[in-house]
C-alpha cells in the first residue's frame, strides 16, 4: 500500500509536555505535472490506496465579472452544469450521476469558478465523460433554468433575513460601492430575474477555455491513464476567451459604523480594513499576525479577551482575505445586544495593542508551530487534496509550493510581524457593520437599503 499521497515531514524535534518543539517541516506532497498529447496541463497526486479518483477544476474569473444588471450569473451557471448536457436532458443527467454515485459540484467564487468531481475508479471514464459534456455542451433547457432560478431566488430571500448574510452584504457594499467587489456572488432578485439562456451560454464560452483551465487530479489513476482522458475531456474547449477586466480596489468608508435594525437577541458584528494580497512580500507576516490576533482558535488574543475571560461570545475570529484585486483583514463576532459596545471596545483595544507592540516571541513561535504542523491535516481526503492543487495554481504558485510553504512561514521574523502590524492595523479606520439591536453603539451613517 502506498503511503505517499500526503506524508508529513519528520518533526525536527519531537516533544512531550514541557520540552521544546523547534519546527514542523512541510508535508511531502508528490505532485506530478502532467501534459497530455493535446497540450492540456494538469497536476496529479497518485494514491492507489482507495478505489477513488477526485478531480478539481478552476477557471479565473468569478462573480466580480457578472455584467451589471445580471448579478448572480456565475452563481446560476454553477447550479446548471449538472442539469443537462449533450444528448442528456436534466432528468437523465441527474439519474446518471446518481446511479454512478458521482459527487459533482461547481462553485462560483468572487474571482474564480471551480468544480469538483469524485468517482469510484471503476466508472472513471463515464465520470470524465459527464464532465466533458457539462463543460462543452451544457443545455440550459428552460425547465432546469427556471427551477434553478427559483431556488436561487428562494435562497436569496432566506439570506435577506439572516443577520450574518445581511452584515456581509452591507459591509462589502459600503466598502466597495461601485466596484464589482461591492456586489455578492449570490446576486440580486433583479439580477437573477434578468439572466437569460444566452447569458449562460456566453459565460461558458468566455470562461471555459483551455488557456484559462486549471486541473488537479488525485487518487487511483496513473499519469499514463490520465493523459488521454485529459484530451478527451477538455480538448474540445475553445483555445482562449475573455480576460479579467476587474480593476484594483481599496476599501472605502474608513471608520464607519453602520447599524442594521433586526429583531434578534444576538447582534452580528462584522469589521475590517485593508490587508495584503497573496503575492505581497508581507503576506506570511500578515498571516501570522492575523493568526495571533484573531485567527487561531482558543489561543488568539481576541478569543482570550472576548470569549475566555469575559464570556461575551461563542465565536470571534478574524481572517486574512486575499482577493485578486484587494487584500483585507476582516473579522466577525456574535454577542448579545447589550454587550456590543464592550465587544467593539475590546476589538479596537486589541487592534491597537497589536499595532503598537506586535506579538511576543512566544506567541509568534507558537503560531508558527500550529500553522506549519497542521498544514498536513488539510490533506486528509482526495477531494481536499484536489482542491489544494487547484487553489495553488489559481494563485499562480509552482508545484513545489507544498514543500516550500512551511519554510516561508518559518522565515518570518518578529520584526517582520511588528512592521506589518504597524502598517496594516488602525483601530480608528476599522469599519463596522452591526445587525441587531445593539446597545452602546453610535452609527456614523445610515444603513443602505435595497441590497437584495
Amino acid at each position: 500500500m502506498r503511503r505517499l499521497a500526503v506524508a508529513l515531514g519528520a518533526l525536527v524535534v519531537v516533544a512531550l509536555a514541557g520540552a521544546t518543539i523547534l519546527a514542523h517541516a512541510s508535508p511531502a506532497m508528490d505532485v506530478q505535472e502532467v501534459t497530455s498529447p493535446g497540450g492540456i496541463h494538469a497536476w496529479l497526486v497518485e494514491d492507489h490506496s482507495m478505489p477513488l479518483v477526485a478531480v478539481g477544476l478552476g477557471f479565473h474569473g468569478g462573480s466580480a465579472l457578472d455584467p451589471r444588471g445580471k448579478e448572480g450569473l456565475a452563481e446560476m451557471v454553477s447550479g446548471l452544469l449538472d442539469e443537462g448536457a449533450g444528448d442528456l436532458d436534466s432528468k437523465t443527467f441527474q439519474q446518471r450521476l446518481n446511479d454512478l454515485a458521482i459527487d459533482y459540484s461547481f462553485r462560483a467564487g468572487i474571482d474564480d469558478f471551480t468544480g469538483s468531481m469524485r468517482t469510484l475508479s471503476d466508472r472513471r471514464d463515464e465520470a470524465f465523460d459527464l464532465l466533458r459534456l457539462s463543460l462543452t455542451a451544457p443545455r440550459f433547457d428552460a425547465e432546469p433554468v427556471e427551477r434553478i432560478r427559483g431556488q436561487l431566488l428562494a435562497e436569496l430571500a432566506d439570506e435577506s433575513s439572516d443577520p450574518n448574510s445581511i452584515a456581509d452584504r452591507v459591509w462589502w457594499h459600503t466598502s466597495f460601492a461601485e466596484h464589482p467587489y461591492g456586489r455578492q456572488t449570490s446576486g440580486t432578485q433583479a439580477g437573477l430575474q434578468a439572466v437569460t439562456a444566452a447569458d449562460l451560454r456566453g459565460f461558458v464560452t468566455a470562461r471555459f477555455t483551455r488557456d484559462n483551465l486549471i486541473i488537479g487530479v488525485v487518487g487511483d489513476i496513473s499519469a499514463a491513464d490520465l493523459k488521454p482522458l485529459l484530451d478527451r475531456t477538455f480538448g474540445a474547449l475553445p483555445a482562449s476567451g475573455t480576460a479579467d477586466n476587474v480593476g484594483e480596489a481599496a476599501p472605502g468608508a474608513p471608520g464607519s459604523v453602520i447599524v442594521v435594525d433586526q429583531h434578534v437577541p444576538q447582534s452580528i458584528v462584522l469589521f475590517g480594513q485593508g490587508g495584503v494580497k497573496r503575492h505581497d512580500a508581507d503576506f506570511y507576516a500578515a498571516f501570522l499576525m492575523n493568526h495571533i490576533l484573531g485567527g487561531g482558535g482558543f489561543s488568539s488574543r481576541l478569543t482570550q479577551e472576548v470569549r475566555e475571560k469575559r464570556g461575551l461570545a461563542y465565536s470571534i475570529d478574524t481572517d486574512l482575505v486575499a482577493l485578486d484585486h484587494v487584500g483585507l483583514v476582516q473579522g466577525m463576532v456574535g454577542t448579545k445586544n447589550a454587550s456590543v459596545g464592550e465587544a467593539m471596545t475590546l476589538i479596537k483595544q486589541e487592534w491597537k495593542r497589536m499595532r503598537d507592540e506586535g506579538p511576543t516571541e512566544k506567541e509568534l513561535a507558537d503560531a508558527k508551530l500550529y500553522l506549519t504542523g497542521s498544514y498536513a491535516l488539510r490533506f486528509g481526503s482526495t477531494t481536499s487534496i484536489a482542491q489544494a492543487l487547484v487553489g495553488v495554481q489559481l494563485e499562480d504558485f509552482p508545484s513545489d509550493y507544498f514543500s516550500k510553504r512551511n519554510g516561508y512561514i518559518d522565515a518570518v521574523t518578529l520584526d517582520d510581524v511588528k512592521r506589518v502590524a504597524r502598517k496594516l492595523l488602525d483601530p480608528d479606520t476599522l469599519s463596522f457593520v452591526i445587525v441587531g439591536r445593539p446597545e452602546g453603539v453610535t452609527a456614523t451613517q445610515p444603513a443602505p437599503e435595497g441590497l437584495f
Partner: protein
Amino acid sequence: MRFRIAWLLLAGLLALGGPPVATAGVFNPSTITLSNGLQVVVIENHRAPVVTHMIWYRVGAADEVPGKTGIAHFHEHLMFKGTKTVPPGGFSEMVARLGGNENAFTTQDYTAFYQSVAVEHLEEMMRLEADRMQNLVLTDDVVLPERDVIIEERRQRVDNDPGAQLGEMMRASLFLNHPYRMPTIGWLQEMQHLTTADAVAWHQKWYMPNNAIVVISGDVTMDQVRPLAEKYYGAIPAQPLAPRVRPDEPAQFAPRRVTMQDQRVQLASWTRQYEAPSYHHGAKEHAYALEVLSEILGGGTSSRLYRSLVVDQKLATGAGSNYDADNVDLSVFSLYAAAQSGAGAADTDKIEKAVDAEIGKLLKDGVTDDEVRRAKGVLLAEAVKARDSLAGPARIVGTALATGSTVDEIEGWPDRIGAVTVADVNAAAKAVFDIDYSVTGILLPQAGG
C-alpha cells in the same frame, strides 16, 4: 452523524447491476477491552503519518435530570478548563503547538472529544485525555464565564434563527415523554442557573473508564496502541456506573401541528417528523429498510419528493427526507420542503397535500425493484467514500459503538443493506408513516409582510 455515509466497503457492489466486487471487510477495526472496562478500537489507515484520537462517553443530553437541561453540553466545554497539573486551556495550547486540530461535540446520546495530530504525538494526546477524565478541576472563575459562552452559543444557533426555534418546538411536540424532547443545548432559563457543583456532579457520575470508548484511526496498529492505552487509561479505576434513566414514549393518538410566523422569516418551509425505530429501539427490524426508503423518497434530485414537488408540480424549491438510525432510543424520519420565494400559508398547504399524496401513493403501490436497486447502489457507494477522510472513520465507528452497535453489526452493515427487499421497504413505510405519531411544522413570513 448519518449512518448512510458511515460505512465503507470496497467497490460498488450492486451499483449499476454490475458484477459484485469482492469486499474486504468493512472498517476491519481491532478492538480490546481493558480490565477497567474501557473499550479501545483501532482503525488502521496508513495513507499518511497522522492519527485521529477520539474518546466517546456514553452520556448525552437525554441523560440529564429535570431542571438541568444543557449540563451535558456545558460540561463538554468545561473539559477544556484544566486539571491538577494542566492549566485552563493548557490541553488546547499543547495540541496547537503540536500542529494538531481538536474539538468536541455533544448529542442526546453521547459526548466525544478528539484530536488529529502527527502519529508521534498520539501518546501525549492519550496522556492528556486520560488526565482530564480523572483529574478535572472546576472552579467558579472558569465555570461562570463559560456559562455565558454557552448562552451566547444558544443565541447564535437557536434564538437568532427562527427555523431552529421552530425545530425546538417540533421536537418537544413529537416526543411526549422521552427526554429527546429537550434541546441538547438546553432551555435558556435552566442554562442560566447551571452551577460548578452541577458540572462536578455530572463528571463524577459519568466520566469513568467503564463508560468510555477510545477510537483511534490512522497510521498505527493495535500492537502499538495497546501498551499506551494500558499505561494511561488502564491506570484509572472503574467505578460503579448508574443506569441511564430514560422514560419511553407512550402510544400517541393524534397528529400535532406547530406553526411559527415571524417577521424575520422570508422563506416559507414545511417539515414533517415521524417517530421511527432506530437500530436499537422500537420496531428495529425496519431500520435498514428505512435507510433505503429515505434514499428513494428524498435522497437527492432523482428522489420521489424532489421529482414530484420541485420538478413536476413546481410547488417547492427543494424537497427531501432524512433518517438516522444511530440512536440509543427512538429515531425520527423527517420530510421537508422549502417553498418558492414569496410563498405563504396557501403554498405550504399545497406542499403538504402533495407530500401526503406521495405518501398515499407509496403506501398503496409500494416501491419498485428498480428504485430499491438504485438506492442500495447509492448507499453502498457512499460507504466506499466514507473512508476517504482522516477523522471520518473514527467518527463513524465511535458513533455506532457509543449508541449500542457492536463491531460485528458495523462490519455487517453492507450485507444488511444489500439484503433489503421491496417487501421490506414497503413494510417499513407502513410502520413509520402513521400520522398519529407525527408533528408537522410550518414556518411562515409575517402575514402581509
